[in-house]
């Protein structure tokens, strides 16, 4: 298959941030990571063109993508691939635009980037295969990318087993057996001890290693955390009411209770009427202060963290968790109480 490979200006060898305004360009050769990719693809598939653009130009001029795809089609390209973009946001977004433009032009397409790259969320129905977080993982990322390219070029659906990070689109097809027969077959499988058999796989979540218990709560600093969209009245940092892309932190110094005139919930997933009557219903600050003054806990961390856990992606939530853990660890906080709505 004839392939066009999209990279940004950095991986095209044009330059770094100072060249991020580079205009879209096509070269009839492999460039940068495309060289190794070609070696991995063997002789069956040929990268006949490298298409590239500066990250800033790509971000500010969405039409660059259709332009590049049209130029690639002039070269007889049959498949468009983009990346790996790792966790680089603008590069990931550019890859998303290129593969989307390719699909709109009727070409199969494939992108490679880390699952946390915001570009993943910009791609619908087109496979995205995982890469590492940074270019240090280039070798492994290209190995996986090449395997995925071969599969997509062969007309096969890319699945999570191949490292696909975005959902496999559901497509209607005629099954070999009727629903009744399949249901009985699944029931028999279950009775036979197969707990996994299903036609509708649910998303899998990480296994969380439980932290060791604290020896003595009276000796430790405890933090309060919440996903209840819990902010000072007026929401000064504009925390989102759903699909939060960030978390925020606020001081608890001088607060003995979460007063209604000082705090509110902006969570969009439930009625905040009760939370806003008495914000201690979301962040139990009044009782935490009591426990602190009685010595039942060594101390209360002087700030709380919050986000809105409504429609938040697992990737974002994982990132928030890692950042909260690192931050609290740094502050010598030994336990955290997280309220969830």
């Amino acid at each position: 298959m004839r392939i066009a490979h999209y990279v940004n200006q950095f991986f095209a060898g044009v330059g770094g941030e100072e060249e991020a305004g580079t205009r879209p360009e096509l070269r009839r050769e492999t460039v940068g990571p495309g060289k190794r990719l070609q070696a991995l693809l063997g002789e069956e598939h040929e990268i006949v063109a490298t298409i590239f653009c500066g990250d800033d130009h790509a971000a500010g001029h969405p039409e660059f993508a259709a332009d590049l795809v049209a130029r690639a089609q002039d070269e007889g390209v049959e498949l468009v691939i983009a990346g790996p973009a790792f966790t680089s946001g603008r590069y990931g977004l550019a890859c998303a635009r290129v593969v989307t433009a390719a699909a709109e032009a009727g070409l199969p397409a494939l992108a490679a980037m880390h699952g946390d790259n915001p570009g993943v969320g910009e791609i619908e129905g087109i496979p995205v295969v995982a890469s590492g977080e940074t270019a240090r993982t280039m070798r492994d990322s290209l190995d996986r990318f090449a395997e995925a390219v071969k599969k997509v070029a062969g007309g096969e659906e890319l699945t999570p087993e191949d490292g696909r990070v975005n959902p496999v689109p559901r497509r209607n097809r005629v099954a070999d057996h009727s629903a009744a027969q399949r249901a009985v077959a699944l029931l028999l499988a279950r009775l036979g001890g197969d707990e996994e058999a299903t036609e509708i796989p649910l998303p899998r979540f990480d296994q969380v290693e439980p932290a060791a218990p604290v020896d003595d709560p009276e000796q430790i600093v405890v933090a309060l955390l919440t996903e209840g969209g819990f902010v000072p009245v007026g929401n000064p940092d504009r925390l989102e009411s759903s699909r939060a892309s960030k978390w925020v932190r606020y001081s608890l110094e001088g607060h003995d209770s979460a007063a209604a005139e000082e705090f509110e919930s902006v969570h969009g997933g439930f009625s905040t009427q009760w939370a806003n009557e008495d914000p201690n219903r979301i962040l139990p600050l009044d009782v935490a202060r009591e426990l602190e003054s009685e010595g039942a806990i060594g101390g209360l961390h002087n700030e709380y963290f919050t986000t809105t856990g409504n429609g938040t992606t697992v990737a974002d939530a994982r990132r928030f968790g890692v950042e909260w853990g690192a931050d609290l660890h740094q502050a010598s906080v030994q336990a955290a109480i997280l309220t969830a709505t």
Partner: protein
Amino acid sequence: MLLCNLVSIAKRVGAPRIVPTRGIPYPTGDPDLGPDQEHAWRRELLERALHALSTPVTEPTVFEGEREG
């Protein structure tokens, strides 16, 4: 540790220490109670949270209260 109402989801995503609460919109409250009783309920939840934090667990574990039915 996690204070939440949707215990089944918390267990499924692997939260190690879970204390169940009474409603999604008010994890550490219960508007059906009078102010003093609600405060006592919140206190019980936090004491249970501290108990959970001091208890070794190897898998998602729910810490039910004695006063709960």
